């Protein structure tokens, strides 16, 4: 069974000269941590937006846990996915608890079950002492950790993280990566996008590199590196497929 199946996906934004996606295809196995990698403008954000049902593809097929992404399944699929956006998608002038209560309520969670789940995650992410501080007083790492909690309150089966460790210190990064491994062990599929390829190499069992709207390579991380003897690590593999030209 796959967590995500993408087949021949096409998307051109209105008014854009170039298509964002040009027949993108890939699949991720259920229960794995996979990296969706690519340079700026490769089509990662567009792909994630289509996976979540935020925008519609012009053509192609998307399945999340074998459910086709369409108008009928859109709401059900939203419930299966947790998204950690690159931005700190929290209300800065609410406390961590108030933020999490609000997003929990939007998921239909309330009362003691919600409160105990929030307490549990705040403890896991080392935020229990700052639970009642307003988020704008938090450090970058604390904000990132709260951002992740907001995405997993409803216990999704698929967690999509966009640059989850951008701008955080080493301790917070280590804690977040360890949490993702532990979380994956509970059976949750994880899609990880980042420009930090050493981090992706450490955590991702499988990667798909996309560029200019198509998948250029997909495979198990270690196997991909081994397939290219001239490459010492994932970054070398990435550069080999996407080139050294600067992207806007």
């Amino acid at each position, binding site marked *: 069974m796959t967590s995500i199946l993408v087949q021949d996906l096409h998307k051109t*934004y*209105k008014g854009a000269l170039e298509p964002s996606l040009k027949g993108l295809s890939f699949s991720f196995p259920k229960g794995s941590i996979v990296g969706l990698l690519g340079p700026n403008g490769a089509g990662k954000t567009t792909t994630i937006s289509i996976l*979540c049902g*935020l*925008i*519609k593809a012009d053509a192609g097929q998307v399945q999340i846990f074998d459910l086709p992404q369409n108008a009928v399944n859109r*709401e*059900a699929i*939203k*419930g299966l*996915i947790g*998204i950690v*956006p*690159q*931005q*700190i*998608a*929290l*209300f*800065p*002038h*609410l406390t961590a608890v*108030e933020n999490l*209560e*609000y*997003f929990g*309520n*939007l*998921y*239909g969670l*309330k009362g003691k079950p919600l409160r105990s789940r929030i307490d549990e995650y705040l403890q896991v992410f080392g935020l229990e002492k700052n639970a009642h501080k*307003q988020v704008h007083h938090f450090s970058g790492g604390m904000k990132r950790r709260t951002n992740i909690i*907001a*995405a997993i309150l*409803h216990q999704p089966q698929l967690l999509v993280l966009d640059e989850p460790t951008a701008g955080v210190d080493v301790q917070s990064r280590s804690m977040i990566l360890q949490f993702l491994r532990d979380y994956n062990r509970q059976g949750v599929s994880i899609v990880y996008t980042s420009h930090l390829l050493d981090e992706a190499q450490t955590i991702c069992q499988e990667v798909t590199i996309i560029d200019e709207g198509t998948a250029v390579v997909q495979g198990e991380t270690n196997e991909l590196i081994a397939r290219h003897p001239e490459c010492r690590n994932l970054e070398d593999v990435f550069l080999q497929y996407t080139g050294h030209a600067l992207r806007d």
Partner: protein
Amino acid sequence: MLRLLATIRKEWLLLLRDRTGLTLLFAMPVILITVMAMIEDAPFRDYQELRFDILTVDNDHGRLGKYIREGLEYSEQFRVIDSMKGQPIMEQQARNLVNEGEYKICIIIPSGATGAIVSNANKIVNDILKRMSMPGVLPVSSRKDSLNVTIYFDPASKKAFKSAIHQALDNFLTQVETDLLLERIKQQLKRKDVPEGDSMVIQLKAVGLKEQLTGPSQEIDVISNSVQHNVPAWSIFAMFFIVIPIAGNMIREREDGSLLRMKLIPGSYLAVLTGKMLFFVAVCVVQFYLMMQVGIYLLPLLGLPKLVLGQSLLAAFIVAVGIGLASTSYGILVGTVFKTPNQALNFGAISIVILSAIGGIWIPLEIMPSHMQFIGHLSPLSWGLDAINDIYLRNVGVGHIWGHVGKLVLFAVTLLCIAAVIEKRRLS
């Protein structure tokens, strides 16, 4: 329902923590209303309650001067000043004082004015007697040229003010001439064998003027004054300024990704938007009632008239909700169209000022040119103000305000639909 209530709670917490925003939402309108009501108090009183000093130079020293002085004093609009430092005012001195703007009006009663009026009355009576084949005995002056009471106005006086004074003085002149004529007729008739005890009452005004209320109730007689115009008008203006926090709120949510997070959560975003709207509509309604309290309690302490609310509190509440819906929807549209808070702030603020100016908030629509009145009636602020004026001044109830409220609700629905289309296009 949980999503809706959670959103209302979230907005409440955010507003409570934004002290500057709270001040802007509630304290600034109070200051605005107080200042505007005080500033516009004088123009509103101009022709209603204010008393003007009127310089009077009486070169006649007869009945006409006395009548004009008494008439002006009786009208309670004027204070007659005919001397300064114990000396009678001279014509040239009076002209200079008016020209320098120290006094607004000066009237010069010419020498021989009363004599001219008496002579004219005598001539009329003699003519009547002649036609009745009776000899005319009253003395008539041989003077042919007519005399004029001269008026000098401060060059800065408004046209309407001048015409009001002209009319008042004209009335006094007519009154004096009529009184003298009647007196002469009575004198002549009394000479002709009238029995003792007959007082010869001649009443000239067989038909008079009586002002009645137009509204359904006879209990309230509200005068449109500075408070009665400015408090509702600037309250509506302040309510529309909710556009700024709403638009800022929408743009921040889009920028920081929380809007994206909300849209990724299963369930309709409409519930979240409804919660947001309900909260801000409630803020608008609270603003409205706070401003009304200012009109009722604070402004009278500053020497201004007390705001009269009319009799239908329910109708006023419905209108306040309608205005809140219109302004909140406008804020949502501005927040959807513009990409940065600065753009939204500039557009939102300037557009509200324009809509308020053409909508009769600054000055009543009735005194604008007809084409501006037509444009003004397209402003949602004028719909709100018309509805409130209907309730407060015309004393109407719920049944009479649906037209205005309907326009406000239709405006709100239209703007929300446009915002939805724009948001959908942005995503695609």
